[in-house]
């Protein structure tokens, strides 16, 4: 009895092994000269699952728009190698090496700066360039020459938010909540605090531990400390709970957040509730009608895509960024004139591309040269974002 | 040769309201075989546990070779609801208590009523492990085999001990796979491996057939002489007790009711009452 079951287990494993090798085999086999592989290093689960999926959707849509690329006259099929880094730093290294061993020429991602920082060195060790899509923490590209990114950075975003809070909202005391051990939120809060205090405001900072779902006390803290804006650039998971608590405790202060909150998840959480949410973002829906409509139709065409996009066809900025990142990668490939990752690496610094989210070019640090951010305000009646005029900090 | 090796003075063990051992005083002299008998639940094993440090007596003093190994007097909550006798006698004395391993270190080894061999180990390892205490080594030298000589010595001695107890043929068998009687003998061998001066046997003959019991008597005498031991045992097999023991202590309900040579004890009314119970109109 036991023996047979043991055998069954072994059989399962063996089968899995074969299949696994088969998988690898097939991928390596298709590594022939007619296909170029682009790695998609995104979370499909964990805290940043939602955002990661939307970013991946953008990339996939771009891939569906132009599935091939001409490099030195020869046409290559672009094959996306997707891996789930589970939004966790310890999985990032192995997830990254999965892509590396699949033999990708370049990598896109990841949503969430922590995983990007954690995965970066693996790509660096393998000499594969990575194009960060929405990872805004400076540390992502800092000290990692293989990491580029097409989005603005947190110091910039932080300043924009601080200015918005101080000047537009006219608040003087901010409650800043970040997630413990999350570089994105910690970083952004830090830059916000710097900028906000420079302007003459006060800040109360606080952190919540991983896996925390009880935000009662945090909102209560903000109230009892007499803060008049609640700044929490955290993952969408936490965002829902925070919005919920703010409503539940009838707190009147506006909520302010970074690009992560630019997601229909938030809209759904806020819809029909008495809450005032503003976020900064890369791309406001409607800025590029052609892209929007194309994306919407593509998303609506498939149930899984729709669910990955959070159940409706709202165009989130991350999708737009993913779309741009893909084309930037293609442009780099064209410049490189080869699918060899080293060549792509060499070509990237002077690759430019005019995307739906604006002009993309890299500075010596590998960061995008951007000076524009958009502020969106959640309309709780319609459950949609209202774009406010773009903010430029030169 | 009346050199006392173990002395209990007014030892009382009280659990909550129950006085398991009440004011027990007894003495075991060097080279003797002394038996502690009594009806079930008389508190024999509890007395053993007080000696070996498993329990800390509520009151009284235990000394081994005139060195106090356990001394206590009721304090804390016990002070109020102490039900034993001579509660005040040891007030002035400072309490002494050792963990069992220290007691063993001093040279008192024991066996258990319900055999407690190390299940997963072979006969050889059971005895060898008991030698660990006396080995001159530390974890570093032991791990990196810097004390290989010591290890070798332990193994040889174990070998010899098994030989002597003619357990050698079971050398590599699992201890628990042995027949019951043999397991008891092994447990004694294991106790001997700690090089004791005083050996406490808790019902060594329990579950043995008459034949084995007979052998056991000889066996106990034998090890006593070979290892220069003093033996203190709890036993129910009266014929065995009468046959081997020099002196006998009888306790009932935790109290000592009689002691002396087998003959004396055999003809003592209290003992007979204790075992057979007293008739109402007696």
């Amino acid at each position, binding site marked *: 009895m036991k023996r047979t079951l043991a055998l069954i287990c072994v059989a399962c494993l063996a089968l899995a092994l074969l299949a696994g090798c088969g998988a690898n085999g097939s991928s390596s086999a298709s590594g022939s000269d007619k296909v170029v592989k682009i790695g998609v290093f995104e979370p499909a689960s964990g805290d940043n699952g939602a955002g990661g999926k939307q970013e991946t959707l953008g990339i996939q849509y771009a891939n569906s728009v132009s599935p091939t690329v001409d490099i030195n006259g020869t046409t290559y099929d672009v094959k996306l190698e997707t891996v789930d880094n589970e939004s966790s730093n310890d999985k990032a290294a192995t997830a990254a090496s999965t892509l590396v061993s699949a033999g990708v020429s370049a990598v896109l991602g990841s949503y969430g700066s922590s995983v990007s920082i954690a995965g970066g*060195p693996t790509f660096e060790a393998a000499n594969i360039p990575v194009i960060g899509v929405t990872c805004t923490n400076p540390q992502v590209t800092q000290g990692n020459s293989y990491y580029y990114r097409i989005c603005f950075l947190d110091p910039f975003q932080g300043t924009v938010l601080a200015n918005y809070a101080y000047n537009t909202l006219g608040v003087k005391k901010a409650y800043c909540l970040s997630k413990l051990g999350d570089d994105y939120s910690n970083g952004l809060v830090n830059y916000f605090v710097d900028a906000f205090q420079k302007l003459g405001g006060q800040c109360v900072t606080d952190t919540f531990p991983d896996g925390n779902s009880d935000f009662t006390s945090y909102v209560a803290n903000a109230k009892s400390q007499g803060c008049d804006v609640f700044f929490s650039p955290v993952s969408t998971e936490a965002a829902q709970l925070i919005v919920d608590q703010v409503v539940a405790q009838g707190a009147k202060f506006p909520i302010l957040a970074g690009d992560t909150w630019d997601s229909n998840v938030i809209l759904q959480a806020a819809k029909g509730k008495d809450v005032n949410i503003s976020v900064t973002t890369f791309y406001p829906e409607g800025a590029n009608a052609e892209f929007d409509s194309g994306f919407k139709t593509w998303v609506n065409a498939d149930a899984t895509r729709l669910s990955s996009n959070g159940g409706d066809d709202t165009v989130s900025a991350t999708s737009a960024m993913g779309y741009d990142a893909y084309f930037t990668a293609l442009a780099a490939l064209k410049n490189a004139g080869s699918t060899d990752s080293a060549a792509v690496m060499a070509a990237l610094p002077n690759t430019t591309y005019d995307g739906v989210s604006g002009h993309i070019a890299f500075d010596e640090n590998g960061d995008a040269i951007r000076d524009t951010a958009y502020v969106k305000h959640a309309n709780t009646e319609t459950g949609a974002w209202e774009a406010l005029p773009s903010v430029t900090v030169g | 040769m009346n050199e006392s090796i173990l002395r209990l003075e007014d030892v009382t063990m009280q659990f909550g309201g129950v006085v398991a051992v009440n004011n027990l005083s007894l003495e075991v002299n060097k080279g003797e075989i002394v038996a502690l008998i009594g009806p079930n639940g008389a508190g024999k094993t509890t007395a053993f546990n007080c000696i070996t440090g498993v329990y800390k007596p509520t009151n009284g003093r235990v000394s081994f070779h005139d060195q106090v190994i356990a001394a206590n007097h009721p304090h804390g909550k016990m002070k109020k609801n102490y039900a034993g006798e001579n509660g005040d006698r040891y007030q002035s004395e400072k309490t002494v208590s050792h963990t069992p*391993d220290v007691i063993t270190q001093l040279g008192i080894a024991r066996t258990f009523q319900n055999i*407690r061999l190390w299940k997963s*180990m072979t006969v050889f*390892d059971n005895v060898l492990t008991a030698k*660990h205490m006396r080995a001159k080594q530390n974890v570093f030298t032991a*791990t990196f085999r810097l004390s290989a000589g010591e290890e070798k010595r332990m193994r040889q001695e174990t070998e010899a001990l098994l030989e002597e107890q003619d357990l050698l043929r079971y050398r590599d068998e699992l201890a628990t796979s042995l027949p019951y009687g043999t397991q008891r003998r092994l447990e004694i061998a294991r106790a001997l491996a700690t090089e004791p001066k005083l050996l406490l046997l808790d019902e060594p003959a329990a579950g043995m057939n008459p034949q084995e019991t007979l052998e056991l008597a000889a066996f106990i005498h034998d090890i006593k002489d070979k290892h220069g031991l003093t033996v203190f045992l709890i036993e129910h097999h009266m014929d065995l007790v009468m046959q081997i023991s020099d002196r006998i202590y009888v306790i009932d309900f935790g109290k000592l009711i009689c002691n002396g040579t087998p003959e004396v004890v055999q003809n003592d009314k209290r003992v007979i009452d204790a075992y057979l119970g007293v008739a109402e109109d007696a």
Partner: protein
Amino acid sequence: MKQLSKKKETWLSVIGIAAVYIIVSVLEIFIPSTSILFTVLKKGAIYALVAVSMNLLNGFTGLFSLGQAGFMLIGAYTYAIFTMPVAIKLTDSVYKYYHCAIGFDMGFLPAIILAGLAAAAFATLIGIPVLRLKSDYLAIATLGFAEIIRAVFQWDELGPVTNGANVMREYLDLSHIKIPFTNIPFPPTLFVFLIAGICIAIIVLLINSSYGRAFKAIRDDEIAAEAMGINLFKHKELSFVISSFFAGISGALLAMFQYTVQAAQFKTAMTYEILLVVVIGGIGSVSGSCIASFLYIACSEWWLRFLDDSQYNVLGLDILRSGFRKVVFSVIIMIIVLFCSKGIMGDKELSVRRLWEKIQRKKAAKKQTVKEGAENE
């Protein structure tokens, strides 16, 4: 049945172990270093070490402790903090929001040792109160301590040392390891195997020493052990500290392997993972733990990944999507736990002798059948 001489046995085992290392180095020469195979081998070796260290505690001393992740964390951080070059400590590339308080750095070998010692030191302190508790209470208390350690390392008052809760990086990771006195990079997988191998070897030596026997005695029957003069607390503490020492070292290796390390990852889930490895391998079997950890890592990181990939969906039903791998994986684990609760090796060891005897028995059986066949003619 032919007997196997002790000498021959030891030789064969030595050869067997040597073979493993030779194979690893050969693989490392011929297969491109980017292959997922090495990722699995490295992580496998690291988990093997921590699993064995946990087995020393749970399997051989019978102390059900769930603190492993905490000690790995200490090891990982100690290593990261001490090997990070001063130059980097001074810039804001890692210590962005704090000024690093540690004004020096050191080579990887002393740092690894230190990692172990740091974990051991903590274990010594924790052990004194905790080891008085029995089975489940001990488990939950150690688990609690692991959580507390994690919180302390994330505390921003300690930021100047631990960089708050943010990632530690740019310390000496595997790609920086050079063969001593030369400038030739050390083959990373081989390096991990060497360190892990040495540590496991030491643990094995300990288990087979007089102290190892004492540990087993405590596991089998505490009361008897104490009655035979084995000081319970001393030996439990010993086992606890040694186990933590090696957990710390494996933590350091993990840090080297991952390039970045962060307190947030050392959750109880990690301890459970290690515990599962121990159980799958067989509680009380070192070789079991090793085999299990490689299987475990290979399955979770490599062989089953295709289950996450919808492009391998057969006959139209899209059961294969992100997360399916884990479902299958946990089902396999449940099967093992339920139906082979002794694990792969039980409490036996994978030894030359056992293999030899198996072969002999097989041979004998064959002879038997042949004979019978002949008689039937």
